[in-house]
Every structure is written in C-alpha cells, then in structure tokens.
C-alpha cells in the first residue's frame, strides 16, 4: 500500500569537507515569507529571496520561519549557506501524486526545484533548468521508514555546484 509522505523542507545530511552549515545574517526582501529549511538565494540587489520553481540559483537554507512579510528591506534574518558538497534529503514532486515516486532509475538524474506552500521538492516533471542531482532514493538505506511505493518519496540529492555558486540576478 502506498503511503503518502508529508513533505518537509530539505534536511542536510552530511558534507565530507564542511562539518557545519555556516550561519549568515542577510538582508531580507520585505515581501518575502518562508518556512524554516526553505531554500533561498541572494540577489544582486543585496536582498535574499525565496527560490521559486525552476530556480537556477540556490544559496541558503532558512534557519527561521518568516511567517509574515517584514515590510521593509532593511531587516536581517539568519540563514545557513549551502555548499556544493552538501547532501540534502528532500521529497520528490509530481503534479500527479501517484507519479511522485522515487524509483531506483532516477539515481544520477538531474531535476529542477519545485516549491509548493513554502516546501521545496525535487521536481520529477522538469529537467531543463536543473538544480539537484539524485544520489539515491532514500528507501534504499532507510528500509523501515521509507518505501519505494511512498508517494512524495524521499531522495538524497546534491545541489548542483553551478547552482550553489551562481550569482543571483
């Protein structure tokens, strides 16, 4: 029986070279709202915005909820900087829930970012402006909590280096 997973924002698993995610305080777009763990990016205007669907720039993981828009562009908020080697645990997305599966065959493939209700997913439907590369479906190593039949199943991914290091427009 397929279990429908409740999706959460990315969970940092490990990084062989950087033991912790460096914390930064950055100016935040006054109109933005987000949830803890959501993926963000720093723009060339000096402000941090939430990454949207198909984002090609991903810099940060939000450390606190931002439940309502601040209303000014002069407030700093804490966030953690992503590195290219960071391994993230994320849920997969497909507009048809029954297709939001994480089969073995997606290992090594690249996909775009999907954002639904302030939750970041790996978008199995789109692979044009990719942000993530799948390391493996999580059910392969988490045999009692995860299953290959899970809807919105979990995968381990790398954020593609060029996406982490890209300059925000």
């Amino acid at each position, binding site marked *: 029986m397929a279990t429908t997973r409740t999706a*959460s*924002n*990315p*969970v*940092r*698993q*490990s*990084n062989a070279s950087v*033991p*912790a*995610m460096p*914390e930064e305080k950055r100016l935040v777009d006054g109109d933005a709202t987000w*949830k*803890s*763990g959501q993926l963000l990016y720093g723009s060339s205007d000096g402000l941090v915005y939430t990454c949207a669907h198909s984002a090609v720039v991903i810099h940060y*993981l*939000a*450390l*606190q*909820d931002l439940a309502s828009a601040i209303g000014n562009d002069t407030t700093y908020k*804490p966030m*953690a900087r992503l590195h290219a080697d960071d391994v993230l645990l994320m849920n997969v997305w497909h507009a048809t829930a029954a297709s939001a599966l994480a089969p073995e065959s997606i290992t090594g493939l690249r996909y775009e970012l999907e954002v639904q209700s302030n939750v970041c997913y790996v978008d199995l439907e789109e692979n044009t402006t990719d942000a993530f590369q799948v390391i493996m479906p999580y059910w392969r190593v988490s045999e*009692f909590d995860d299953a290959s039949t899970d809807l919105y199943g979990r995968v381990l991914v790398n954020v593609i280096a060029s996406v982490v290091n890209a300059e925000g427009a």
Partner: protein
Amino acid sequence: MAQTRLWYPQEGTVTRFGFEDHFDKAMNDIKLRVDRVPMVNGQFFTEDDEKTNTYKMSTRGNEMALPIVTQDTSVRPFDQQPPGYSKTLTIVPYSMAVKITKEIVGMDLKGTIQHDMMSGLPTGLKRLLEYAMANVINTGAATAGADGSFIFGNDHYNEDASSGTWSNLETAVALSPSSVATMRRNMRKRKNARGHFMGIKMTKLMTGIDLMDEAWSIVNSKRTSNDSLNGESSIYKAFDLVVNDYMTDSNAFAGWGDLPESMWGFHAAFRDRPVVESLGYPSPEYPRIVKGFYSFVAFVVGASQAKNMHWNVGA
C-alpha cells in the same frame, strides 16, 4: 481547531534555531519527550556474533531411526542422522549521528540537552532492531527460508525427505478460541525429521494490537464458546500473551512453542554490537561544535526454519 505544524531547520547540527524555546527566559521547564521503544521481538531470535559480513548457518540433528529387532547374532543395524538446511545472511551496517553547538548547551535550562540528544541514539538502535526482527515475522508467509519454502509454509520437507513434510502455516481463519486451540494441537502434532512426535507445547500466543483484546479474552476466559454447553475452556490461561506492536497484519496471529533455542530458526547475527561513541568534537576549526555522537551496529536478522512458531494469517 487550528493545527500548528512545527517547522525547524534541519542543518545536521543541533543549533539554537531548532530549539528556540530554550532561549525563552519565561520558560520554566523543558520536558523531555522520551523515545519509548516497545521491546517485543527479541524474545524470538537467537543472537550470534560474526566476524565477517556473512552469517552462514546450518543445522544438524540427533534424531535416529527407531531401534529394530536385533538378535545377538544379527548384523548390527546402523543409522545416521539427517543433515540440515543451510542459510546465508548478509550483514549490513547502520549508523546515525548527532552533534550539538556550545551555544545551545550553554542556554539549556536543565543542563541535560547533550545527554538527551545522545540518548536518542541507543533507543534508535533498539527500534531499528525491533523493526528488522518484526519484518522477518511480518513477511514470513511470503519470504523463502532455508529449505526453499516460505518461512511460514505448509510444505516444508523434513530433513529426512522420506518422512514427508511439515507445516507451520495454519489454515487461514479468524482468531477465536477454536482457532487457537487448533494451532496448539497442530503444534503438538508436529513431527521431527524422522517423522516422530516432538511434543511441542505452545507457550505464547502473539497478536498485533488490533487483536489484543480478543486474544486476552480467549486466554482468560474460563468458559469456552466452542459449544452451547458452556464447558470449561481448555486454553484458559494456557499461554502468555504477546502483543507485538510491530505486527503489520491486523488479522494475523501466531503461536510460540517450547523447543530449545537452537531450533527457533530466527537469527540475529552481529558483526558489531550496537554502540554509541563520541565523534571527537570539538575540532580545531569548529571549537564550538562541542559534542558529537554516533550510533553504529552491523547486523542481520533472518529466518532459516521457523520450527518454533506457527502462523495464521487470520481472516
């Protein structure tokens, strides 16, 4: 009711952002949510230590053919015991870790957060073992054992093939006083590799949570519901009741016999016993990530021949 879903950053390190209540001076106490792990399945498994990544086991028996009529001058009759089926299981390593910053340790009201975080690692190991062992039982009616039959099957060949087959899979019927009594009789009827009685006495009745009340009533009823005469129940307090929280089938139930441990057929083999050790923080570059711990176990669980358990998938 308005639901509140807690969102917290999962950055791989326990920092103040995940535990903002710790920084609230008005907070009088932070209670620990203890990870309670029901310990059920270990009682059915034999433990072994293994040095390599495979655990390979087999059995041997001491069941001889019956002595035959032999006069003093007759040719001496000899017999040899049947060998056993072998089973190979591959050991798998598992690990999880936690690390914590000095800031949150310093802010902690109770001064126990390091210990509390670390204490989740051994309980996680216990839970892993329980899930792994329960999985063997839950999937036993569809997973091959050492003899090629399903672990719970009705077509196991005896080790001496001339002695026919044996079954540890009951005819599927709902849990009831009569189906439990039938299971007990079937266990008692089971024969050894030579086709002779073993006298297995059923000592435990195991069900999932959904059948626990029914099972309790069955075991603790003095009167039988099998007939209209309101006679004495033959299984009154005859078994210990095991409620297995991890059973996935809400209709299934099982009986456990009194065979010696070497015949249980459920194996847990450890290359590395469960441990929780320090990660060696703080490191020179991260002096304020003060503590880190990891759990580790390398083990495998599986079944060869479940000679001491009878399974009924229920209805």
